[in-house]
């Protein structure tokens, strides 16, 4: 028996043939469309080749770009795909109407998205967090106030960017469930992304950070690449890795068989990757976690990652999220058209003041941290009663800018009459002026009233004017907040017609309504 073993082993080595001695000719090279960070597997691929006789030739691409290239199936001619996650690919495949056999797919290792920050930032984040447990809301708040600038890959191209985006959007929605289309609201993510410096892929992000360590405070990327970045040395200050308490979207690095004729080589590759000794090597080399049992995690990975933030099960949700993301890089410009008629005296103006204080940073709930005014944003307040009674525009670059805005909102100067629709027209004129200055910004109007329109044009009159093609800034959406006695039907109709929607503050509170409605598309 032992003779046979040695003989078999030697023969296998000599032939480096996968299927054993004297059988089929070796399939010794597989082309692989691979996520860009898998460049770190290169040292192990030589061993894989020695052991299995299969050489993998990796072509690197961002995971989302790769997923787009793979659908419809058959267009791409690689033998395998090896992606950080195949969730986006599988959703696209299902949506494309593919009904044939899906490619075989096998998880090979796991990582999840985290944020690496300089030690001082980590300390500040923990100090501001409940029980020192940092959430994405805490990170969003620091970013919105300009204290945290981080590099993160573009979710339209990269798996790390996409999973990070899904993670923060899920955390921001705070439903404890996968994202639904109605949960995807950009206002919650704007603050966070005001601190983002984007790069195309995970690899580019690391490069960006290495080159500009002085100008950046952190990196959002896979736990594995952050640990590698630290381990490789070369950073002036090693990053502290924070795994936000909201949980994580897992990336499980599936290998997919695209060319069924290469099945045997695929099996050999998968089998090799999943052998416990190789899982250990992968973990030690790349800091990705093992997917097989019986592999004790290395020191750096004996850290909880929380529960799952789910990858949505509908492509619609992901696409919507990506569309919202695109608007994040543009300047946001919000025009608040606010009712200062007599009925706003007393409790109502107090509620309005408190709502603006909340948006300026006083609201320390998670939703408040996500929705607050962010650096780089421009905010206009138009006060109205029978006519326009005041107007102020503030470009937010520092906390003091928000003080000026809060003071302006707090002034108790009320007028008679309520000309809601004339005021909204004025809002659109302001929007048009702002767009003339900078056509690339994202402008929206938020209209709040607590009474019935009793002066100037009616809602019908307004909509009639609005429907003319030359109405100024016609593409800008209006979001309405109903308070007090205001007509829900009219506010809803106008908002919906312009592409926005209404929130009823009588059902909740002004603060909640303002948080909900910070429209930005």
């Amino acid at each position, binding site marked *: 028996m032992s003779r046979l073993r040695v003989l*078999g082993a030697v023969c296998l080595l000599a032939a480096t043939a996968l299927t054993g001695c004297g059988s089929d000719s070796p399939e010794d090279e597989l082309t692989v469309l691979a996520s860009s960070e898998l460049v770190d597997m290169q040292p192990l691929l030589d061993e894989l080749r020695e052991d299995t006789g299969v050489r993998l030739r990796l072509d690197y691409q961002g995971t989302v770009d790769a997923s787009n290239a793979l659908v419809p199936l058959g267009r791409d001619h690689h033998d395998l795909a090896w992606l950080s996650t195949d969730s986006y690919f599988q959703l696209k495949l299902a949506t494309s109407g593919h009904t044939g056999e899906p490619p*075989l797919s096998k*998880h090979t290792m796991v990582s999840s998205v985290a944020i690496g920050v300089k030690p001082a930032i980590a300390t500040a984040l923990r100090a501001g967090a409940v029980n020192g447990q940092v959430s994405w809301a805490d990170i969003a708040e620091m970013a919105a106030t300009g204290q945290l600038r981080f590099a993160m890959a573009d979710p339209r191209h990269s798996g790390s960017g996409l999973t990070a985006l899904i993670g923060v959007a899920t955390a921001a929605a705070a439903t404890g469930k*996968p994202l639904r289309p109605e949960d995807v609201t950009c206002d919650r993510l704007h603050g966070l992304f005001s601190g983002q410096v984007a790069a195309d892929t995970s690899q580019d992000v690391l490069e960006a950070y290495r080159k500009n360590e002085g100008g950046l405070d952190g990196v959002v990327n896979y736990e594995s690449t952050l640990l590698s970045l630290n381990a490789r040395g070369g950073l002036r200050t090693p990053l502290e890795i924070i795994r936000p308490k909201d949980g994580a979207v897992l990336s499980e690095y599936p290998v997919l068989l695209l060319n069924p004729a290469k099945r045997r080589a695929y099996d050999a590759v998968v089998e090799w990757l999943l052998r416990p000794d190789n899982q250990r090597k992968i973990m030690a080399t790349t800091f990705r976690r093992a*997917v097989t*049992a019986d*592999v004790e995690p290395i020191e750096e990975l004996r850290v*909880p990652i929380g529960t*799952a933030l*789910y990858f949505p099960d509908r492509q619609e949700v992901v696409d919507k999220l990506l569309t919202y993301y695109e608007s994040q890089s543009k300047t946001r410009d919000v025009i608040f058209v606010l009712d200062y008629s007599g009925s706003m005296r007393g409790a109502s103006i107090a509620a309005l003041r408190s709502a603006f204080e909340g948006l300026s940073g006083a609201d320390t709930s998670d939703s408040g941290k996500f929705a607050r005014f962010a650096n780089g944003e421009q905010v206009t307040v138009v006060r109205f009663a029978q006519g326009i009674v005041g107007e102020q525009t503030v470009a937010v670059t520092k906390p003091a800018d928000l003080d000026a805005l809060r003071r302006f909102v707090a002034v108790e100067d009320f007028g008679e009459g309520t000309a809601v629709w004339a005021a909204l027209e004025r809002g659109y004129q302001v929007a048009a002026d702002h767009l003339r200055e900078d056509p690339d910004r994202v402008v929206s109007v938020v209209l709040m009233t607590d009474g019935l329109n009793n002066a100037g044009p009616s809602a019908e009159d307004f909509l009639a004017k609005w429907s003319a093609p030359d109405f100024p800034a016609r593409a800008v959406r209006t979001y309405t907040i109903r308070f007090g006695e205001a007509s829900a039907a009219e506010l809803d109709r106008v908002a919906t017609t312009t592409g926005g929607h209404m929130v009823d503050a009588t059902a909740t509170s002004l603060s909640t309504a303002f948080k909900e409605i910070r429209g930005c598309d």
Partner: protein
Amino acid sequence: MSVFAVGGVILLLVTGNIFVPFEGTEEIEGITGSKGAFFNDETVRRELASHHIKVHVTDVGSRSILGHDLANKDFAFPSGAPAAKQIRAKAGAQVRDPVKVFTSPLVLATFREFAETLRDRGIVESVSGDSTSMYYTLNMKKFLDQVAGGARWSDLGIQQHNGGQKIDNVVVAQTSDFCSANSAAGYLTLVAHDRGGGKVPTDVVAADKLGRDIKGLLDGQGRTDDALATTYLSDANVARTKPIVVIYEHQYLEHQIKRAARPAGLDRDRVLLYPDIQLIAEPEFIPLSPKGEELGKLLNSDENLRVRAVELGYQLNTVQGDGESLNRLLDDKHIPAPPQIKSTVVAPELAELEAMIKAVSSCPG
């Protein structure tokens, strides 16, 4: 060189060629659900090799087998009866004598802190009566009431068992894909049985309606994962991202049997919840060629393979009682015996099951 030689031997063992590397090995091609793992077990491979057989399987999920071309396959091995019935119908005359070798109940696998949180709320009971049991019985009705109410783990008090940490995800049992996995269809049956008032629907219209009623109890889990058991048994921090997963008992017991042989002993962190009404999965080996038939006979008769099946946590399908060999083995290894099965759910007919699956999930094709 010696290192390479060792590597080579391992590879040979794994590919099953060790005993007869150069002559007469029959290659048998199978398409399976999760039970394909049986043929990838090293001991099983070696035993089959001694019979000059090498089995190559493709695990596509039991319910997906149907969508694949069966003409060039020697056998299909779905994990449960409903898929088996469909496959037999599709393959028609190609089918030879099916073999039911072993069984395993469907379980909800979790970690201690989640089980104890449910125990505080009277949703599960510890089989040993204290907080060290490996097994808990699950009151399905109470559990589904929590799922239906959108309870979060924090609402149930996970903090008490989790070092003060809140977990704001809603309580849900995560399954594999309803479109492809027998285990997911099995869990759907259990949920349907409970929400249907202790019975499963007997006509398609009722099944469709019930399916739509219970959809919300099943679909709050995002993209499903077809490697649930593997994930559950790997890195505990990764596994905990999914607090409750629907798997088969044998997958858990295989893990504990392995652990029993180690110095560290049994895994007291991972525990099972047994629904008060159970569903026993009966994998069915369906030969589709003479070679497949030969293998089926071997599975039924080869003592070594049967012993190995028990070591892999399966209950043997025998006349004198399914669990007997397994319980003996567990006893030998000082592993507590799983709770006795009190009652099992009567599975719905195929048409009704399909109607419910269609109502809860959008399957392609």
